[in-house]
């Protein structure tokens, strides 16, 4: 039994070329996701946290 992947991965990866820069789309997607998660980890409030500014 086989299941079709949501995205067909059964082929060589596509690459982007910007001058000297060359990277596969999957690697670029992972790096983009890491940046998004990093930004979200800083921006999103942590459950149960209370920000006190200027309080004693």
């Amino acid at each position, binding site marked *: 039994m086989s299941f079709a992947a949501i995205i067909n991965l059964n082929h060589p990866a596509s690459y982007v070329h910007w001058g000297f820069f060359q990277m596969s789309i999957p690697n670029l997607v992972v790096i983009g996701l*890491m940046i998004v998660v990093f930004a979200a*980890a800083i921006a999103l409030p*942590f459950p149960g*946290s209370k920000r006190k500014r200027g309080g004693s």
Partner: protein
Amino acid sequence: MSAGAGAKKSWTVRLREAGVAAMPPERLLPDGQPTYMSSWIYVFGVLTIAALVVIIGSGTILGLKGPAWWHYTGIGHFFNSIHLWAVEMFFFFMVIHLWGKFFMAAWRGGRSRVWMSGTITFLVSIAAAFTGYVSQQNFDSQWISTQAKDGLNSTGIGAFFNVLNFGQMYTYHVLLLPVVVIALVSAHILLVRRHGIVPPLPLPELGAQGLAGAGAPSGAGAAEPAP
């Protein structure tokens, strides 16, 4: 037989006392954590460790069952994929952990060994992952190893680290490098517990005095670096 008051202490007693002095139980397993840890950026270290646990568990099963199992059976494919994606998560979380610690200058307050142990763990983990890619026993591993051999041989390391030698790469992958990674991660965690979680950088408008009020640690001495 117990030693008298003036008697010379045995090495076991000296080792125990040195261990407790370096790592008191309340510092090793604290009651609470500093309030500034109430941020998502502080969870990526433990997420990395969780991924490492999955890597070791799935890798142990793969090692016990062997290449024919992970290539030709459905459950083998499943554990092979678990192992691969746990590695992906491991590096994903570790890099975000690294970014977070870099931008908060986590080497402050006598924490240089914490930073360096993490950095070395990252580098050794790359080698551990690489030896895994060349141990897959498929065309992918053949391609990677034949592409890598020339680069490695040009450095002279090929005489000791031969990527075309499956037995050697597999030993590196399932024994030598995991032992180093686990030892480094253990040392990293103990150093974090010894020195405490690094506090955020002080805000310019608050200064160090304001930081003490806005994000004072709730754990006993949790943010204070050990002498």
